[in-house]
């Protein structure tokens, strides 16, 4: 009986056209993996001739894993990667440009938020996001109430005043922080892409090859940020031990405000046992210039996908970046949609939690990283030299600019 069954199964299997199997890789983040599993089921139901195999790896090992597999002709056909890694991936020839007939550049630029243009390298698009992330201020409503702060901050001036009322203790021993300062959290993005622009500067030249924050605006940005620690004593980095110090401390109810990305919504929603809210990143009273840092994880097609596989990969990528998928992604992962249309959706913009992040999309800038780890280090060291060693912001900016320019020169040589 069993033999007969096996035989029958084999026959039916061979009778149907052999399905194309695609391998999809992303890093291991529980809600993303679960959502993707559901999406894959849906896609396979729509495309019976395509099978998708999802494989995930721990974040720390992810990049190495891709880098060592793709050149050997193994690994994924469709791969999920941080937009900041794209230049290196394209440079190494791991990704193929998205076929222009399936993904015309014009159509991409009219359907997706402006941030997507970081995926355009040498005039061609190499990847597309499902969702994007921006920054906003998370604040602890209960701590605000206790401190007598009635409204969440709209300007940086309000931000400092509110934090000063909330903070308890003094360095190096605080009990409650006004602002969960953490240079290597999201803060270095705030200085680079938000504050520099709000002070009237630009962090990089248009082609991204030149550091331009070694300027008046850059010094003002560095001064403003480091003052939060040295002058206003609103908090201290690494308040809680561990990897996500500022976020963990916020969730524990010990911090008045943190600046974090939309990707933190899920974690905070799950962990925080108090009333909290989200407001957009502040502006300065005088000029009201808005800016934000936008980032995303994008999906690209590797050089492994050829022929039938390439056609299937195109279908899968279209599915992954469709509005339907974006809506599912928002609901189950919490990352905001990459489509202009959805980002303009009034209900989403009015949402008390997602709203401030969606609001920032039109003026969100993404840094064109060529060596994300190295470029981050340059900034974090510069900030630390001011707040831990009393260096002047002017020197620190100069040092960061020199360090980062060296990295850029190494890449664009």
């Amino acid at each position, binding site marked *: 009986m069993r033999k007969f069954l096996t035989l029958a199964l084999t026959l039916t299997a061979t009778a149907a056209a052999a399905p194309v199997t695609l391998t999809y890789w992303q890093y291991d983040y529980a809600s993303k993996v679960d959502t993707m599993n559901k999406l894959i089921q849906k896609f396979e139901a729509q495309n019976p001739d395509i099978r998708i195999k999802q494989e995930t790896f721990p974040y720390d090992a992810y990049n190495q894993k891709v880098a060592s597999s793709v050149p050997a002709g193994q690994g994924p056909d469709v791969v999920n990667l941080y937009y900041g890694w794209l230049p290196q991936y394209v*440079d*190494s020839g791991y990704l193929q440009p998205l076929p222009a007939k399936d993904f015309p550049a014009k159509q991409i630029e009219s359907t997706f938020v402006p941030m997507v243009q970081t995926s355009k390298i040498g005039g061609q698009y190499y990847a597309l996001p499902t969702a994007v992330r921006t920054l906003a201020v998370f604040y602890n409503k209960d701590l605000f109430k206790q401190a007598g702060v009635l409204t969440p901050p709209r300007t940086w001036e309000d931000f400092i005043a509110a934090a000063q009322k909330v903070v308890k203790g003094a360095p190096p021993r605080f009990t409650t922080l006004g602002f969960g300062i953490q240079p290597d959290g999201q803060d270095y993005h705030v200085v680079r892409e938000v504050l520099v622009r709000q002070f009237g500067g630009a962090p990089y030249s248009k082609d991204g090859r030149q550091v331009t924050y070694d300027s008046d605006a850059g010094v003002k940005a560095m001064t403003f940020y480091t003052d939060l620690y040295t002058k206003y004593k609103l908090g201290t980095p690494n308040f809680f*031990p561990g990897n996500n*110090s500022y976020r963990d401390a916020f969730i524990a109810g010990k911090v008045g405000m943190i600046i974090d990305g939309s990707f933190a919504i899920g974690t905070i929603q799950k962990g925080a046992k108090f009333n909290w809210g989200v407001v957009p990143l502040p502006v300065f009273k005088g000029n009201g210039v808005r800016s934000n840092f936008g980032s995303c994880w994008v999906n690209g097609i590797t050089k492994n996908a050829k022929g039938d596989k390439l056609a299937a990969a195109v279908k899968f990528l279209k599915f992954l970046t469709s509005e339907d998928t974006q809506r599912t992604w928002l609901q189950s992962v919490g990352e905001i949609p990459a489509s202009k249309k959805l980002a303009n959706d009034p209900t989403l913009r009015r949402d008390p939690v997602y709203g401030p992040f969606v609001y920032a999309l039109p003026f969100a800038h993404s840094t064109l990283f060529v060596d994300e780890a190295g470029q981050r280090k340059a900034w974090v060291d510069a900030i*630390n030299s001011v707040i831990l060693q009393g260096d002047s912001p002017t020197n620190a900016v100069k040092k960061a600019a020199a360090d980062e320019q060296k990295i850029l020169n190494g890449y664009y040589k």
Partner: protein
Amino acid sequence: MATTSEARGDRAPARSSARPGSLRRHQILTAYTFLLLPLLFFLIVRFIPTLMALRLSLFDWNILKEQQPFLGLENYRALLQDEKFGQALKNTALYTLIGVPAQLVLGLGIALLLGRIRAFQGLYRALYFAPYVTPIVAAAWVWQWVFSPQFGPVNTFLMWLHIPPQAFLTSPSQALPTTAALVVWQNLGFQVVLFLAGLAAIPRVYYEVAEIDGASSPQAFWKITLPLLNPTIVFSVVTGTIAYLQLFTQVVNLNFTDQGGPLGSTMTVALYIYQLAFGRYQMGYASAITVVLFVIILLITLLQLRFLTRRYDV
């Protein structure tokens, strides 16, 4: 010792066999057959990769690039101008200079004390040994809380003594000693066990003779205990130095957010290699540093063996 066992080994087959040469050859062959497997293992897992690292260090080997151009000694020249490498080297030397003597003196001191007490000896040994078998990551995690400037009991204690609270791991000047303290504390148990074994190996009769001759106990320590512990001390210094020169795990796990400490203050050579190779994919440059580290370790070890090893004929 060595000479007598060799002599015995020579004589034994001569007595039992008519053709001593062939049996000896047979024994050697058997020995090498058994050694073949570990030898192969070492060859594949250790030596070949080492040689490959040497080769890699001559290339601009970035795993995210398709071309890996030959550079010659360019990576080594770049090293000479790399401030961060200089800092890592200095930090590593500091760790070694703090850690090795500290764990030697503390280990010996505790072993001597444990040798004296009679009650609960096993319990004390277990207590000192516990940190050594604790996973480093867990120990580092606890250490972070113990030395937390905000909530740590160490600062609470300092404040009780009216000493101002310290920044510890978040201060560029205190992060390295705090990290070194963790390593010393973790290794102490192993050192204690090592010295207890070394002390037990010294025949009691020497002390009895010394006592009859009227030697004081400090005299006995300096003239008998310390010289006869020389092999143990050499072992501890050499292996300890190598371990400190390769220090990595504790440093990585003590400062999660800012690996290598604030402003690179706890960065070691091994961690720098890791960050360059697996964080920034500069395999060639990282390999050049591994070669330099290898040479440094080799030289220091040879020097230590040359100058520390003493022969005492008591």
